[in-house]
């Protein structure tokens, strides 16, 4: 995953809030991944238009955190989901 990549959730992968558990999940074929706040924040930004770099900058500003640290978290998280075909790159 590079800062220039533009990522998106492919069809068949979507966020879902379970009211019974009061938690968010990323649903995909045969997969349900429980999301923490960071996961929700990152995935909510994927729009298939902005680059990973732009998303990191936005999150750094919103959470008043160093961009380098966020960049690392975002790249690790998205790379893993990309490997599992739950995130695609344009």
């Amino acid at each position, binding site marked *: 995953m590079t800062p220039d990549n533009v990522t998106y959730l492919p069809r*068949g*992968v979507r966020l*879902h809030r379970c009211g019974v558990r009061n938690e968010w999940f990323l649903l995909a*074929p045969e997969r*349900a991944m429980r999301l923490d706040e960071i996961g929700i924040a990152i995935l909510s930004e994927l729009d298939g238009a902005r680059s990973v770099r732009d998303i990191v900058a936005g999150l750094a500003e919103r959470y008043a955190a160093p961009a380098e640290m966020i960049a690392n978290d975002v790249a690790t998280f998205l790379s893993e989901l990309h490997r599992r075909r739950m995130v695609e790159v344009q």
Partner: protein
Amino acid sequence: MSAVPVPLALLAEVTHRCPLRCPYCSNPTSLVKRSAELSTATWLDLFRQAAGLGILHVHLSGGEPAARSDLPELVAGVAETGLYSNLITSGVGLRESVFARCVEAGLDHVQLSIQAADAGTADRIGGYRGGFATKLEVAGWVTSYGLPLTVNAVVHRQNLDRLPEIIALARQLGARRLEVAHTQYHGWALLNRDALMPTPEQVERARAIVEEAGGRMVIDYVPPDHFATWPKACMGGWGRYGMTVTPEGVVLPCQAAESIPGLEFESVTDRSLSEIWRNGLAFATYRGTDWMPEPCRSCERREIDWGGCRCQAMAYLGNPGATDPACSRSPHHSQFRSRALGFAEAGVDSFTYRG
């Protein structure tokens, strides 16, 4: 008494009708007739109940779900609840216009079965001429409508040696995911185990082929347990993650649970899904660890394997409350293994086709 977990998945066997006659089918040998199937309205109510229970995935399966003319309504019913809808189909009997209505209704994913990578073998195994060609066409619809496609290949002695071709075919069809699932020996498959049981060498080779496959397609490999050290945590543990609803509305802890005599199963026509899941006797009987005999009870893996498969203990030992004989710690393990070897070497190729 263990706490009752929030379930993840509902397998809705909306019909037992199916044009294919696969000898590895895990449906029971006594199939539910069309006249006994639940109505559209009852299924839709059931999906709402499933959402209320915390379920996340609804698998529309069968039999062949496309045998029901209300398939798009069923998909719409799942979509309305926000739950993830998965159509598990053979492709045979599914018309493009019906599929298009399912997509429009919000279908999330399609899992398409294949029996082999060539028409001759596939149609012989499926017991339906022309089935293979139909599947290729259906795979094309799925990808052209932009839906994620999983190809599901149930493997056994008679198709395992062509696993590389099966993987290549799934790639060629544009599958995002491939499931290579060893046959589960329940229902019709149990009848056919002398024609289906793989040899240990085939199993070993298959594992290596999957590991080395590479590429972007996700491959999920469901290993067999006959030649393994530890049993499979069937259903991830009885009454922990999922449930199956039969075409007539009976709620089961696993697809094959009706093979266990003495368990009382309840129907959604009599009681709510929530009550059956939480308080139903069939679910409570083997949920958690309280029911376990030794060697499970004191085993450090008791909450990993959950005692293995109850139906397998029933099928091989006549005792559903026994440790799964697939476990190397079962006193019956070596006998179980040598019986499996016997089936693998039976030299029988002819099938008893599903009715």
